[in-house]
């Protein structure tokens, strides 16, 4: 009896570890930016070329930075939710139009609705790199002091919005 105890223990341990491994999503790489200052940027606005917007301009309020592009398929999936959130006026959403053509981007917003206070144009993806963007769409929650508090990788789901993003926004605004 005793001689089976050790292999059984090893097996159970292995099964537990593999089981935990199955529940993890390898696509979600934890961002080192959490609780760090949001990287600075100064970029042209999509709807007002020649007018720029900086991260510094947005200090003093809790805001969302949503990385999107007209070529991004999953952005289509999350967009109605963002439009709804924009209408509810809970938190200002700013868009980072990532590696996109302005005409295509504007046509896309015309079709899907524009939830953004402003979208800024990151044509060469440089600011995207500063924010550690690797899978569009991504959404950052940034607090009054300009600290990144949360990063959603992939589309914002109703569940993530209800359970993570909105409670966090309320807490930060509170």
């Amino acid at each position, binding site marked *: 009896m005793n001689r089976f105890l050790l292999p059984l223990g090893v097996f159970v341990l292995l099964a537990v570890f593999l089981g935990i491994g199955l529940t993890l999503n390898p696509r979600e790489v934890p961002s080192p930016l959490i609780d760090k200052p949001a990287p600075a940027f100064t970029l042209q606005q999509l709807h007002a070329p020649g007018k720029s917007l900086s991260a510094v301009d947005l200090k003093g309020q809790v805001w969302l930075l949503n990385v999107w592009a007209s070529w991004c398929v999953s952005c289509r999936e999350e967009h109605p939710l963002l439009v709804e959130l924009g209408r509810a006026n809970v938190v200002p959403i700013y868009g980072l139009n990532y*590696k996109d053509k302005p005409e295509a981007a504007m046509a896309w917003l015309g079709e899907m609705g524009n939830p953004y206070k402003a979208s800024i144009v990151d044509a060469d993806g440089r600011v995207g790199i500063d924010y550690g963007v690797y899978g569009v769409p991504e959404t950052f929650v940034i607090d009054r002091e300009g600290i990144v508090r949360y990063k959603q990788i992939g589309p914002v789901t109703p569940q993530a919005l209800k359970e993570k993003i909105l409670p966090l926004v309320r807490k930060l605004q509170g």
Partner: protein
Amino acid sequence: MRRGLLSCLWLIASAASGADTDAQLEPRMNRLAAELRCLVCQNQSLADSNAELAVDLKNQVREMMRAGKSDDEIKTYLTDRYGDFVLYRPPVRTTTWLLWAGPFVLLAGGGVVLVRVLRRRQASLVVAEAQIETSGANLDRARSLLAETPTDQRP
């Protein structure tokens, strides 16, 4: 016309010189990029990947090399943005010691088990031999029994 020709020449010259510095950079860039993970296609290195982000990041690495940054500075730049995950060889930390020490712990554990099994087997062999020795008398009897085969069974 002449101006056109001149600017054309200038373009060729600058392209050539650009290619020259790139050719010097390229081996170093590839060596570094082979140690960096592509975040889009996670089982490929940055050097092997043609994903758009990988191309952008390689351009960024080239640019930083041209600006005279060291490999370590470039790695820090990337880990500040993408985390230790971009490194195929993550640094030893409290969160990664199991990753680094794990294989050696397993090897040592396997060695301990092997030694114990071998010792036990050795011990049981010794016991078996001792039994054979003590039963020497039985052996003699067996031999004598074999020698005197019953006569009625002879052909």
